[in-house]
């Protein structure tokens, strides 16, 4: 802001115009206790001149009274908002801070380094696009550094700044900087970040925060602020298939019926065809209504009201989606779960599952494994405790529309709420929403990638894993519009061999053929039925007919 003060003075309207095109970047800072996070953010606020005179006066008084810098300005005090924190000298909750440069507005989530407050870090990271991970140059990587990096990758942040702080205390030693970076790159390799940018800094003295420091002539990368101003965060959600969780049906009078919501993915124009994810019913967009006039187009991130050309049944909780690439409807999503509550997860207990579209009762049927956040190794556990992360299988009361979290944060995330205490007990990220595991990663490839690809049968692997549940497994094919084929695993046959039954929901009778062929090839039985406009097939293994078949094959005859 300081750079433009001349323009502000001389031509405020030109200045305001220049500010209209600013973008927004949300980032998170994380690191261990005493790594200097609060000092770093205080410094960014300070140097972008967002500290006002009266705050400065208060800061000077506070620095003398409770500061940790021997009476000199203690930037951390700008951030430690709660009295309890001042007394303990630690940050105990997520704080959001704002500053702005000529190019961007920034929202910073300042999160605690204390181990027991992992939940706050996940909270702060869930909306961030970039993570600034602080490391003390004297100490190198710590357990918490690893934990935070893993969490950052888990919540889908793709760009990481490794801010190697307190370089002044290691004499700005290049070798030290490079050895920490090497360690980190090795550790972070499996986390799949799109970029790791290491910057040698001193938050306290301001080295490489706003401008390149004379103390690090060997460093040729950007200063931190410069990086934050220019980093390109890929925002490809508007190119993805359309997703519109319906938040509210607006019906002020009989002539207007609008569906309000925020576009979670894709781009929409009047005339575009949409379908209701739960019912498969289709219609077209009539208008994109806003108070500033109808829009010719709306994109991911915009909060709009859509009207459709047909009267079809849509309510809060439904998702409107592209007809050529609808989301998966699933009762049994598999997901990463971060447990946020003292009271451990109880598999089998009913929680409320809040997703982008709906609140649905559901339970965790199985904890596949927990992840050791220090080694990233999998371990077998009966349940998840506070701050533990694992992969679980859920069973929902009714099918819910999901996309994989890696594809879309909005339609792939959920929280679990305790029905009695109403506490938010867990954060979930859907890995795979389909009750059937597809052999190809069709949900992550762009829609209608090639004409040839469209007519290749979609191949599903059927395994016990893919249909697990406490009652009859469901394989929903109503979302499939092209040819399909199945690959059957031994565990799937074993599952049926134990007397379990699988319900196949078909879009139309044409899908019966691949199911029938599979049944034929694996000596399975099926029952066929219709309900309203749906076709259902129950697949099972009849012990008797299996025996008869066995006898026939071995010469017994019928």
């Amino acid at each position, binding site marked *: 802001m300081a750079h433009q003060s001349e323009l502000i003075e001389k031509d405020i309207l030109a200045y305001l115009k220049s*500010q209209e095109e600013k973008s927004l970047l949300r980032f998170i800072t994380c690191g261990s206790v005493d790594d200097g996070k609060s000092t770093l953010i205080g410094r960014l606020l300070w140097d972008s001149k967002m500290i*006002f005179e009266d705050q400065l006066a208060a800061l000077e008084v506070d620095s003398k009274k409770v500061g940790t810098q021997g009476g000199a300005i203690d930037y951390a005090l700008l951030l430690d*908002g709660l009295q309890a924190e*001042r007394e303990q000298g630690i940050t105990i909750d997520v704080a959001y801070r704002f500053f702005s440069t000529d190019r961007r507005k920034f929202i910073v989530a300042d999160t605690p380094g204390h181990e027991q407050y992992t939940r706050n870090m996940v909270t702060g990271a869930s909306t961030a696009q970039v993570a600034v991970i602080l490391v003390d140059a004297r100490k190198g990587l710590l357990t918490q550094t690893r934990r935070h990096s893993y969490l950052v990758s888990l919540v889908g942040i793709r760009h990481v700044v490794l801010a190697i702080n307190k370089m002044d205390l290691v004499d700005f030693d290049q070798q030290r900087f490079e050895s920490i970076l090497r360690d980190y790159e090795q550790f972070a390799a499996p986390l799949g970040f799109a970029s790791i940018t290491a910057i040698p800094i001193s938050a306290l003295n301001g080295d490489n925060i706003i401008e390149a420091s004379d103390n690090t002539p060997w460093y040729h990368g950007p200063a931190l602020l410069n990086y934050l101003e220019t980093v390109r965060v890929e925002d490809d959600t508007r190119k993805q298939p359309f997703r519109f969780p319906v938040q509210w049906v607006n019906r*002020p009078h009989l002539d207007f019926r609008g569906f309000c919501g*925020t576009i979670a993915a894709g781009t929409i124009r009047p005339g575009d065809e949409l379908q209701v994810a739960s019912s498969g019913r289709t219609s077209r967009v009539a208008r994109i209504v806003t*108070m500033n006039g109808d829009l010719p187009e709306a*994109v991911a*991130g915009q909060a709009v009201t859509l009207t459709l050309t047909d009267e079809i049944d849509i309510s809060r909780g439904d998702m409107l989606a592209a007809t050529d690439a609808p989301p998966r409807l699933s009762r049994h999503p598999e997901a990463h779960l971060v447990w946020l509550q003292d009271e451990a997860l109880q598999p089998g207990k009913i929680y409320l599952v809040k997703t982008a579209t709906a609140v649905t009762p559901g339970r965790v049927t199985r904890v596949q494994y927990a992840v050791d956040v220090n080694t990233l190794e999998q371990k077998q556990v009966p349940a998840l405790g506070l701050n533990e992360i694992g992969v679980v299988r859920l069973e929902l009361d009714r099918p819910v529309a999901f996309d994989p979290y890696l594809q879309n944060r909005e339609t792939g995330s959920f929280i679990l709420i305790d029905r009695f205490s109403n506490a938010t007990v867990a954060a979930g990220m859907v890995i795979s929403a389909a009750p059937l595991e597809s052999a190809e990663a069709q949900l992550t490839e762009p829609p209608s990638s090639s004409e040839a690809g469209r007519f290749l049968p979609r191949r599903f692997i059927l395994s016990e894993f893919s249909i697990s549940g406490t009652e009859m497994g469901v394989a929903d094919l109503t979302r499939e519009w092209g040819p399909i084929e199945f690959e059957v695993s031994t565990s799937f046959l074993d599952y049926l061999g134990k007397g379990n039954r699988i319900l196949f929901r078909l879009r139309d009778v044409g899908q019966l053929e691949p199911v029938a062929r599979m049944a034929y090839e694996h000596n399975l039985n099926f029952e066929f039925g219709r309900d309203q406009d749906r076709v259902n097939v129950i697949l099972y293994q009849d012990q008797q007919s299996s025996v008869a078949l066995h006898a026939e094959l071995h010469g017994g005859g019928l």
Partner: protein
Amino acid sequence: MSPNLTHLQQLEAESIHIIREVVAEFANPVMLYSIGKDSAVMLHLARKAFYPAPPPFPLLHVDTTWKFREMIQFRDRMAAECGLDLIVHVNVEGVSRGVSPFTHGSALYTDIMKTEGLKQALDKYKFDAAFGGARRDEEKSRAKERIFSFRSAHHRWDPKNQRPELWNLYNTRIKPGESIRVFPLSNWTELDVWQYIHLQQIPIVPLYYAAVRPVVERDGMLIMVDDERLVLEPGEQVQHKSVRFRTLGCYPLTGAVESTADTLPKIIQEMLLTRTSERQGRLIDHDQAGSMEKKKQEGYF
């Protein structure tokens, strides 16, 4: 393809999403309307969220009886223009005990007329969710408050026991008597608010614009003589100065700044060129260290 969303478009969308979520999930929401510029933006966003319908909730103004007269006129006009029900609540008990900012000091006065008044109104109408226009950049303790901020049946905020708030998935579950304060402008800054008012041409109370007004200097602040209840102390003199207000509250507690900024761009220009933060014009925040945190725990907005 449309250009990327600007920061104001993103903030607007986030706020509209929050407002709709409240209406969808709560039985009896209300919007606390303080008549200031943040309330003006919040009300504008609410209208956008439900257009072409009016927002499906009433406005609540907790009137301390010491607001600027122009604020009250503006309030009544806006409610009528937006087609909204306006509930005005006054803590009559406070009034009957003669509580005023002059006699009781700003801390006790605010507690009785604002905090208590607000609690009375929320209890009387049994609102389960109340929108407030607070921003996280205003004050340190607000920086840590959730967008959906839980309040106990006694309206208390427990900063150490806040619900984690992830993505845009807001936990709206409460038990009878409990409530949620919702802050749709959490992520806006003062500059964002002004820029948005400028871009969207949102009407604001004229007191924000500089004009010649009668003021007295008291405790280092310029206090406007808005009605006859302001009694001059020995040595005080009414002066006519070109002043405006950066923040609006009860007139005896709200300091004016000398200014000639009589248009919106000039106001923004002045704001950017000064180095005094916004809430300094309000006496109540300086009463005691961590005073806002204390007030919030007790139920002040």
